[in-house]
C-alpha cells in the first residue's frame, strides 16, 4: 500500500494542521485506508467543522419535539401516538456535475434518512435554484434535475407535494438541489442509530458496494474549478427500485424486535455509518471487509470504506435474530451479510484478507474532529433607496403586473410539478401550486402541511433579516392552509466558509433563523449545511432553505387559495407600508438591486398568524393566501387564476400610492376571503387582537378590475402566469 505523507493528505482535502493532528492522535502515521477514513469524516460535509459552533445557537427545543438535530432526521409529535419524521438535505455539488443522478440520489438519500428511523415516507418536497434563464447551462440542468427528482420519487411511490424553484445569476456555476422528506411513524416505534451491547452482529443490507461516489462527501466540501468534469465519478448512481425494496424490507424487519440500531449509508458510506453507530453507543466496531457484498472485483479496503454506492443500510441486530432478518431481505431479493460485530475496544477495526487494515479510536474521528471558529464579517443594514415618486406615476399597473406574473420566479411551475407524481398514496389533499402541500395522515382526520422556502435576495441584502424572513414565510405558508406550524428543518447553502463575508452571511442568517424560530415557538429539528457553493471564487447568494411542517387536526378544515364565491369580500391582514427595496418591482421593473429587505416584525408575524388560525378554526375563512413576492396584486392574481373568478379592487385611502400599495413586499400579510355577513364578527376579532386589516375588494366573475380604471380578464392573468415557463422549456 502507498505510504502516506503530508502531500497525500492534502490531496485528500485535509489541511496541513489537520494531518498533523491525525498523526498526533494516532501517535503514528496513518495508512492509506485510515487516511481515507479521516478525510471522509473530517471534511466539511460530514464534520460540520466550520458550522458546528454556530449551529449550537439554533432554537431546537419545544413541547412537540421528540428528536432534535443529531439523528438521521428530526421527529415531532402529532398526537394520538403518531409522529412525523422529517429532514431536508442538499445535493448541490453532484447535481451540477450530473443533474439527473445528482438530484435523484439526493431524493433517495433523504428518503433513506427518514425510513431509517422506522417511518414510512408520506411526502417529498424540494427547493431547486438555477442560474439566470439566459445562462446556456440552465435549461439542461433544470430538465435533468426535474427528471432526476421525478425519476426517483415517482418510482418510490411517494408523492412530491410542494416545492420551490428560483433563478438567479448567482447560481450560474452552482445550482442548488435541496430535497425534503416527511415520514409517518408510531411514537413507540422510532429507530435510532445508537448501537448498544457487545458482540452484537453488524449487518449490511441493500445494494452491493461499487466504485461509485468515492470521495463524494469530500467533493461536496470544496469549491469548483475548471476541472469539474473530472469529478463525474464522484457522483453516485441511484436505483430507486432497489430503494423501494429496501424500504419495504426495512419496515417489515422493524415491525419486529430484532433491531438495536440502524443507520443508512449516505455521505461517506460504510465509514460514517459504522463510526456513527459506534460513537453514539460509546462502543467499538469490528468489520471484516471480505464479507461486504461488492459489485466489482478486487475492490480495496480503501474503496470499500469510501464508496458512496446508494441504497445500503447498516444494522446492529439482537444476537440470534440473523435468520429472521435474512429471510426478510431474501424475500425482497436484497443482499444481506453479517460483516462484523460490536466490541468494547472503542476502536474501529477493519480486517481484509485476514489482516488488520485499519485501527482507529472512534473518538478521534468524531469528538476530536476539527472545529473552527472562523472569522466572519457583520453585515450592515443597507440604506433605503430614495425612489422618485414620479417613477411610480409613470408605471401602468397592467403592464407591471404582466411582467411580474410572467417573471421566472413568480410564474406557474406546473411544467415542473406535473412531472412529479403528487397523488400516489391517495392522501394528497392539497397539490403543488398552493401555499403548502397537504397530505392526510392515512385513515385519520388529521393532515400534515409542509412547505419549503428561501429568500436569497433578502438574505443577500441583509442576512439577519433574511434569516428571520425565510422562517416567517414558511410559517405563513402553513397558516394559509389552516395548519398549526410545529417545527422546521433547515438546509443552509452558502459559499466558502473560509471567506469572512460568506462566513458572516452564514452566522447572521443562522442568528435570524434562530430568533424567529424561538419567537414563533417553531423549533429546528433537523437539517444540513452545504458550504463551498462556489465556482472560480464566485459564490452563491446566501440561501438558507427552510422546510416547515404543520398539523391540521381536521382535514376538512383545510384552506386553499382559490376564490370560492362571488360577492364574498377580500381583506388584507397586516399593515402595508409600501416597502419597495429588494422587491420584485424594484429588481425587475426599476432595475434597482440595492437597499434593505422588508423589515420582519416577529410580534406582528405571530399575532397576525395566530389570529388568522383562530378565524379559520371558527370557519370564517373561505380562502387565504399569504402575500409574498410581487405583493398584494400578485397574490390576488393567483387567487383569481386558481378560483377562476375575478375581483373588484378598491385601494384603501392610504398615503402611499397605488404602485407602492399593490407591489410592495411588507411582511406578515395575508389575503383572506370571507362572507359579507361575517365581516362584522371578523373585524371584531381582528380589532380585539390589534391586527391591522384593509378591506380591498369583492369577488366578481372573470375579471380583475382595479379602481374602475384597469381591467384584466382571468384568461389574461392565466396566460401571463403560465406561458412563460412552457415557452422557455420548449
Amino acid at each position, binding site marked *: 500500500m502507498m505510504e502516506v505523507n503530508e502531500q497525500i493528505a492534502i490531496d485528500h482535502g485535509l489541511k496541513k494542521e489537520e494531518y498533523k493532528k491525525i498523526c498526533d492522535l494516532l501517535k503514528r502515521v496513518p495508512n492509506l485506508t485510515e487516511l481515507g477514513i479521516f478525510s471522509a469524516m473530517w471534511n466539511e460535509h460530514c464534520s460540520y467543522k466550520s458550522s458546528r459552533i454556530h449551529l449550537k445557537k439554533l432554537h431546537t427545543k419545544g413541547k412537540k419535539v421528540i428528536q432534535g438535530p443529531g439523528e438521521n432526521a428530526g421527529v415531532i409529535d402529532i398526537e394520538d401516538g403518531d409522529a412525523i419524521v422529517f429532514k431536508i438535505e442538499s445535493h448541490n455539488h453532484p447535481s451540477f456535475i450530473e443533474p439527473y443522478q445528482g438530484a435523484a440520489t439526493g431524493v433517495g438519500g433523504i428518503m433513506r434518512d427518514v425510513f431509517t428511523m422506522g417511518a414510512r415516507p408520506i411526502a417529498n418536497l424540494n427547493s431547486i435554484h438555477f442560474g439566470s434563464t439566459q445562462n446556456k447551462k440552465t435549461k439542461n440542468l433544470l430538465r435533468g434535475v426535474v*427528471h432526476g427528482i*421525478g*425519476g426517483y420519487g*415517482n*418510482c*418510490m*411511490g411517494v408523492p412530491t407535494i410542494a416545492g420551490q424553484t428560483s433563478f438567479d445569476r448567482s447560481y450560474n456555476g452552482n445550482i442548488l438541489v435541496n430535497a425534503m422528506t416527511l415520514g409517518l411513524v408510531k411514537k413507540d416505534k422510532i429507530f435510532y442509530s445508537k448501537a448498544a451491547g457487545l458482540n452484537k452482529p453488524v449487518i449490511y443490507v441493500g445494494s452491493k458496494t461499487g466504485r461509485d461516489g468515492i470521495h463524494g462527501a469530500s467533493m461536496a466540501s470544496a469549491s469548483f474549478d475548471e476541472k469539474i468534469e473530472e469529478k463525474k465519478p464522484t457522483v453516485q448512481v441511484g*436505483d*430507486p*427500485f*432497489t430503494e*423501494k*425494496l429496501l424500504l419495504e424490507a426495512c419496515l417489515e424487519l422493524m415491525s419486529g424486535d430484532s433491531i438495536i440500531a440502524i443507520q443508512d449509508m449516505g455521505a461517506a458510506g460504510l465509514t460514517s455509518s459504522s463510526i456513527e453507530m459506534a460513537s453514539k453507543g460509546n462502543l467499538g466496531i469490528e468489520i471484516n471487509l471480505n464479507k461486504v457484498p461488492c459489485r466489482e472485483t478486487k475492490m480495496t479496503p480503501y474503496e470499500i470504506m469510501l464508496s458512496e454506492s446508494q441504497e445500503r443500510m447498516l444494522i446492529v441486530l439482537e444476537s440470534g435474530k440473523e435468520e429472521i432478518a435474512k429471510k426478510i431481505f431474501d424475500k*425482497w*431479493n436484497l443482499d444481506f451479510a453479517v460483516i462484523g460485530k460490536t466490541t468494547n475496544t472503542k476502536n474501529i477495526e477493519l480486517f481484509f484478507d485476514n489482516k488488520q487494515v485499519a485501527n482507529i479510536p472512534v473518538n478521534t474521528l468524531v469528538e476530536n474532529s476539527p472545529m473552527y471558529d472562523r472569522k466572519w464579517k457583520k453585515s450592515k443594514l443597507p440604506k433605503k433607496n430614495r425612489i422618485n415618486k414620479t417613477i411610480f406615476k409613470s408605471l401602468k399597473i397592467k403592464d407591471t403586473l404582466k411582467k411580474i406574473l410572467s417573471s421566472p420566479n413568480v410564474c406557474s411551475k406546473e411544467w415542473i*410539478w*406535473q*412531472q*412529479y*407524481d*403528487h*397523488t*400516489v*398514496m*391517495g*392522501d*394528497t*389533499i392539497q*397539490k403543488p401550486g398552493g401555499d403548502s402541500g397537504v397530505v*392526510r395522515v392515512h385513515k385519520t382526520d388529521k393532515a400534515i402541511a409542509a412547505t419549503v422556502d428561501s429568500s436569497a435576495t433578502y438574505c443577500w441584502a441583509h442576512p439577519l433579516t433574511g434569516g428571520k424572513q425565510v422562517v416567517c414565510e414558511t410559517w405563513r405558508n402553513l397558516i394559509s392552509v389552516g395548519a398549526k406550524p410545529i417545527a422546521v428543518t433547515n438546509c443552509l447553502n452558502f459559499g466558502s466558509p473560509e471567506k469572512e463575508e460568506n462566513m458572516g452571511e452564514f452566522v447572521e442568517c443562522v442568528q435570524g433563523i434562530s430568533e424567529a424560530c424561538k419567537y414563533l415557538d417553531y423549533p429546528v429539528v433537523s437539517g444540513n449545511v452545504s458550504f463551498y457553493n462556489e465556482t472560480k471564487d464566485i459564490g452563491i447568494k446566501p440561501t438558507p432553505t427552510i422546510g416547515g411542517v404543520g398539523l391540521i387536526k381536521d*382535514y*376538512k378544515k*383545510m384552506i386553499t387559495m382559490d376564490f370560492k364565491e362571488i360577492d364574498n369580500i377580500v381583506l388584507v391582514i397586516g399593515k402595508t407600508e409600501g416597502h419597495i427595496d429588494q422587491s420584485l418591482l424594484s429588481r425587475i421593473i426599476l432595475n434597482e438591486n440595492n437597499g434593505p429587505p422588508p423589515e420582519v416584525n416577529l410580534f406582528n408575524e405571530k399575532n397576525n398568524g395566530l389570529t388568522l388560525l383562530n378565524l379559520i378554526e371558527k370557519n370564517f375563512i373561505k380562502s387565504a393566501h399569504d402575500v409574498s413576492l410581487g405583493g398584494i396584486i400578485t397574490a390576488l392574481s393567483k387567487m383569481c387564476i386558481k378560483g377562476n373568478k375575478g375581483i373588484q379592487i378598491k385601494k384603501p385611502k392610504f398615503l402611499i400610492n397605488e404602485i407602492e400599495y399593490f407591489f410592495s413586499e411588507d411582511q406578515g400579510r395575508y389575503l383572506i376571503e370571507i362572507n359579507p355577513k361575517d365581516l362584522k364578527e371578523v373585524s371584531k376579532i381582528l380589532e380585539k387582537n390589534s391586527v391591522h386589516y384593509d378591506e380591498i375588494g369583492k369577488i366578481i366573475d372573470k375579471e380583475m378590475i382595479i379602481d374602475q380604471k384597469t381591467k384584466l380578464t382571468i384568461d389574461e392573468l392565466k396566460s401571463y402566469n403560465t406561458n412563460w415557463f412552457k415557452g422557455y422549456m420548449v
Partner: protein
Amino acid sequence: MKSSVITFPGSNCDRDMDVALTKFGFKNKMVWHNDQELPKSDLIVLPGGFSYGDYLRCGSMASKSKIMHSVINFAKSGGLVMGICNGFQILVESGLVPGVLLRNKYLQFICKNVHVKVDNKENTFFKNLDKKILEFHIAHNEGNYFCTNDQLKEIEDNNQIAIYYCDQNGNTDDQINPNGSIKNIAGIFNKEKNVLGMMPHPERMIDESLSGEDGSIFFKNLINNIK
C-alpha cells in the same frame, strides 16, 4: 365480492387499490407475486407502480412472474382482470390485451387530471354507468398506446376500446391527448371484455378531498355489476 390485488416488487399503488376496493365493499386480499395460487376471487387487479423498476421494458419482467400463470389462466377462463397503469403495461406484456405502451410523446412523466370518454358499456366494467365522461387521474411515463393498423382494425371491429382521452365535453381531438396514444386510447379490453387495461387511476379519485370523485362512481358501479 372478493378481489385480489397482486403486489410485484416495485408496485406502489397496491395499497391505494386495496383502500379503494375495500371502501366500496370488496373483500380484498393482497397476493405476493411469488405465490403460485390465486385466492378465490371475483376480480383480480394488477396495480400501478414500477414493477421491477420498469427495467428492460415496463411490465415485461412482472409478466413472467409466478403468479401471472394463474392470472392468465383466470383471465382465459373468463375471470375479471383489471390492470391500472403499470398493471396495464403488464397486461400488454403478457399478451392479455393487444398493443404496446410506448414512452409518452413529450418524453415526460405526466401527473394530472384528465377526462375520459366511455365508449363501450356492454361489459362488466362499465355496464349501467350513468355517465359517459369521467374525470380520472393519470400519472405515468409510458402510456402512449400503440398498435399496428391491422391490430387497430381488429380492436375497433371488436369494440375493444374501453376509454378515450377527451375534453370535458367529450371531444377526442389531438390537443387533448396527453401522451400521444393512437386514437386517444386510454384503456382497452381483450376480445371477450373480461380483461381491462387502462392508464388512469380510478383509485385516486374516491373522495371529495382528493382529485375528484369519479373513481367512486366507477367502483360503485363495478361492484354492482359483479354482484
